[in-house]
């Protein structure tokens, strides 16, 4: 009886909690193709797993209701049962099938979210360098030759390629409604593909613990139609101050700063750790044969991804 009550309490709690949310949960409320793929995967996995949980719970309730001592005769002696080949094969085989199904989903979608989003392949992606320092985000737009701090404006309906790195501890660049996160690290550049379908304001943050000011290391993302975006860029170019090495070094000092905007990017005097500037061992190799391939780092990476997609398909 007590267990029934416990279950009811749990269910009640869950129900209260779920109805307590007015807005849909951020991760399940995607505003871009990458986040949409991920939300789909999450829902697929939740339903699959709900089935597993249901099977377990039904069996569980059946067992503890039916075979409790209070419902048995006093002289009942439970039998000795070794096990059952058939049953055991069933509960090995079905989970294998479920795992196989989820594996296929995972491999397929992982390749998807690691590439330019579907439907956006034709467009030239907008490259934005997003670098973290304690405890802020610097966004450099090499194409537009501008730089912002702690806020990000992006055009909708255009693929965006974030180049992530860090001037300190590992940070994780995350805009839940546009797509999952990726690490920004000091010795190499990671690429994150995102795109926004819908104009709007989104929350972005560092989600990887990076010291005492970590909680406030957030930034605002504003997605807007290309026209507005271009207008914004022009405005910045007309009004903002240029970024200098001195100013940038001041920005790098640990602490919180508000939002600010500059013309030019810090990449000119403080290049990202990619290509010849990479600190990571495999790039920083002194082998001469490697330097050539580094120049075409991008192309090799892409071809590799294609390659892995094929190999995973064959799997």
């Amino acid at each position, binding site marked *: 009886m007590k267990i029934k009550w416990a279950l009811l309490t749990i269910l009640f709690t869950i129900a209260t*909690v779920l109805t*307590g949310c007015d807005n849909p949960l951020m991760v399940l409320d995607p505003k871009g193709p990458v986040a949409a793929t991920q939300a789909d995967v999450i829902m697929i996995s939740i339903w699959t797993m709900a089935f597993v949980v249901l099977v377990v719970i039904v069996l569980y309730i059946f067992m*503890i209701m039916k075979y409790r001592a209070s419902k048995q005769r006093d002289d009942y002696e439970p039998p000795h049962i070794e096990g059952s080949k058939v049953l*055991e094969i069933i509960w090995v085989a079905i989970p294998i099938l*479920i795992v196989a199904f989820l594996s296929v989903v995972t491999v397929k979608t992982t390749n998807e979210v690691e590439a330019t989003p579907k439907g956006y392949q034709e467009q030239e992606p907008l490259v934005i360098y997003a670098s973290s320092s304690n405890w802020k985000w610097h966004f450099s737009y090499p194409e537009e030759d501008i730089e912002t701090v702690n806020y990000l404006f992006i055009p909708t309906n255009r693929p965006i390629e974030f180049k992530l790195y860090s001037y300190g501890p590992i940070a994780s660049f995350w805009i839940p409604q546009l797509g999952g996160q990726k690490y920004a690290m000091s010795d190499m550049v990671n690429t994150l593909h995102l795109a926004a379908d819908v104009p709007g304001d989104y929350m972005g943050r560092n989600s990887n613990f990076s010291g005492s000011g970590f909680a406030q290391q957030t930034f605002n993302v504003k997605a807007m139609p290309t026209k507005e975006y271009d207008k914004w860029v022009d405005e910045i170019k007309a009004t903002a101050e240029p970024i200098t090495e001195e100013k940038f070094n001041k920005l790098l000092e640990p602490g919180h700063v508000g939002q600010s905007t500059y013309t030019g990017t810090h990449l000119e005097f403080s290049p990202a750790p990619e290509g010849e500037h990479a*600190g990571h061992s495999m790039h920083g190799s002194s082998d001469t044969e490697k330097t050539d391939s580094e120049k075409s780092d991008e192309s090799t990476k892409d071809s590799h991804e294609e390659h892995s997609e094929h190999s995973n398909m064959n799997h």
Partner: protein
Amino acid sequence: MDYFDRFAVPHPSPAIYASMVAIGLTMLAVVVGITYFKKWGYLWREWLTTVDHKRIGIMYILSALLMLFRGGADAIMMRAQTAVPDNGLLDGQHYNEIFTTHGVVMILFMAMPFIIGLMNIVTPLQVGARDVAFPRLNAVSFWLFFMGAMLFNISFVVGGSPDAGWTSYFPLASNDFSESVGSNYYAIAIQIAGIGTLLTGINFIVTILKMRAPGMNLMKMPMFTWSILITNFIIVFAFPVLTVALALMTMDRLFGTQFFTMANGGSDMLWANLFWVWGHPEVYIVILPAFGIYSEIISTFARRNLYGYNSMVISMVAISTLSFVVWAHHFYTMGHGAMVNGIFSITTMAIAVPTGVKIFNWLFTLWKGKIVFTVPMLYSLAFIPIFTLGGVTGVMLAMASADYQYHNTMFLVAHFHYVLIPGTVFAVLAGFTYWWPKMFGFMLSEKIGKWSFWFITISFNVTFFPMFITGLDGQARRMYTYSESTGYGPLNMLSFVGAIGLAIGFALIVYNIYWSTRYASRNISNDPWDARSLEWATHTPIPEYNFAIVPTVDSTEAFWDSKKKGFKLFGGKVEKIHMPNNSGVPFIMSCIFFVWGFAMVFSMWIIAIIATLGIFACMAHRSFEKDHGRYISVEEIEETENKLRGAK
């Protein structure tokens, strides 16, 4: 004075000063108390120098309980801080220190020693052995763990706590970003305790493989013993990785090496990699023994043999092997391509298969049984659905593409608490209650036990279920505060309420120990639960030699057979028994280790060198020592046996 500045806490708060005073007073009270009651001799002879696996086990469990409350206090403070938006109870730095120590203490100084404690008490009894293979080494293991734990715990009053998370990722944990000695404590205290754990691993593998009672072949071992055997294999092969990782960390912080630095070719990711190469098997080190405990308890109180014994064993072997090939799922988002993430997704999800086998085997152990709802059984039964929830969210997290959204969020926090609390904490509480009468000769109150069970189980869900939701709503883990506009407030408050309930539940356990010690009947049989394995075949309290006559075994449940089918467990006659001598060297050596560790933390090289020499001197002493143990004579055994029989 400058010299002593290093011992000051960098971010003092009234709470820390209060703790300093409290710790000082408690230690003083303990010393005065022992002196007053003239117990120093007793303490030294019976406990500090003991090599008896049962006493070492009890000391492990006491330390683990102590650490449970230390880690629990941290947890309550965390939940209190995040209960409302923009709370000013703790500042960011203090919060960071608290979640760091909470993680380290709970995993390494609570879960592991609690399990090792139960393992110490039960395993030799279950295999019908007189002690572990290397009793002296066992004492070394315990004292190294204890000194490591103590060294870690003084950090918050001497020099400052570590504050880079229990994962201690570089470069955050480097001298550049963690200036206090906190991370030195982390590297060195865990190192000392880790060496102790590694020695335990070796000790128990040898004990189980070489010291089983006649007739007990591998496939006739009780399931708990099987789980311990497999766990110790994982310990032996995973802990050296931690040893190396921590050594590299120590060298980076103290000697200026470049392993995880941002310049000169270092790789911060390498730390994360090595940490999780150890870290993932570590999860199974604390989970597999729990599976063993549940197998024993469920079968005992369903009054039935364990369903699918063979597949239970095979699934544990499979889990242990898989545990070594999944670690990269802890950093899918580090930027390795889709291929690497795909491989690790699949290996990770594969673990669900053997784990599922175990769940269904437990369920079918209940089938046609006669279930008695004792406190240990309640924990075991609550474990099944809650752990299933933790397990299926694990499968969800294993899917790399979706993990990009779960990673570093409260969803992950909820998941691993849903695995570790029903998996490990419920198991050790169940095992603790179950084997308590064997350890102390009386039962814990079932009534108070049930109260604490319901408090813990319900509050656990109230605390951790909301985190799944806030995680999906974008709340990152380890945030000391959030603004009201995020809307995380109400659910976090709910978690805090749950945390209070958990605290009440644990307090009730303490009260239960107190109450039962005072009032519970001492007149219990050797086998109060009507159990099935060999540890219940000997007397309560257990004589130091465990079994006067070594038992003979011919099935997985020899003791049950002896009760039901008249199988003869103890053939033959009493012979003199060889027992190891007590020794003070393990304790002394571990104290020197403590001094060494302290000196290393604060870069006091001369003391560190002297302590190193002291440690080697202890080892050399051991090499030259002639210690052949002692014999207990037949008369003495018979006298003890008669006394124990007469007591009933």
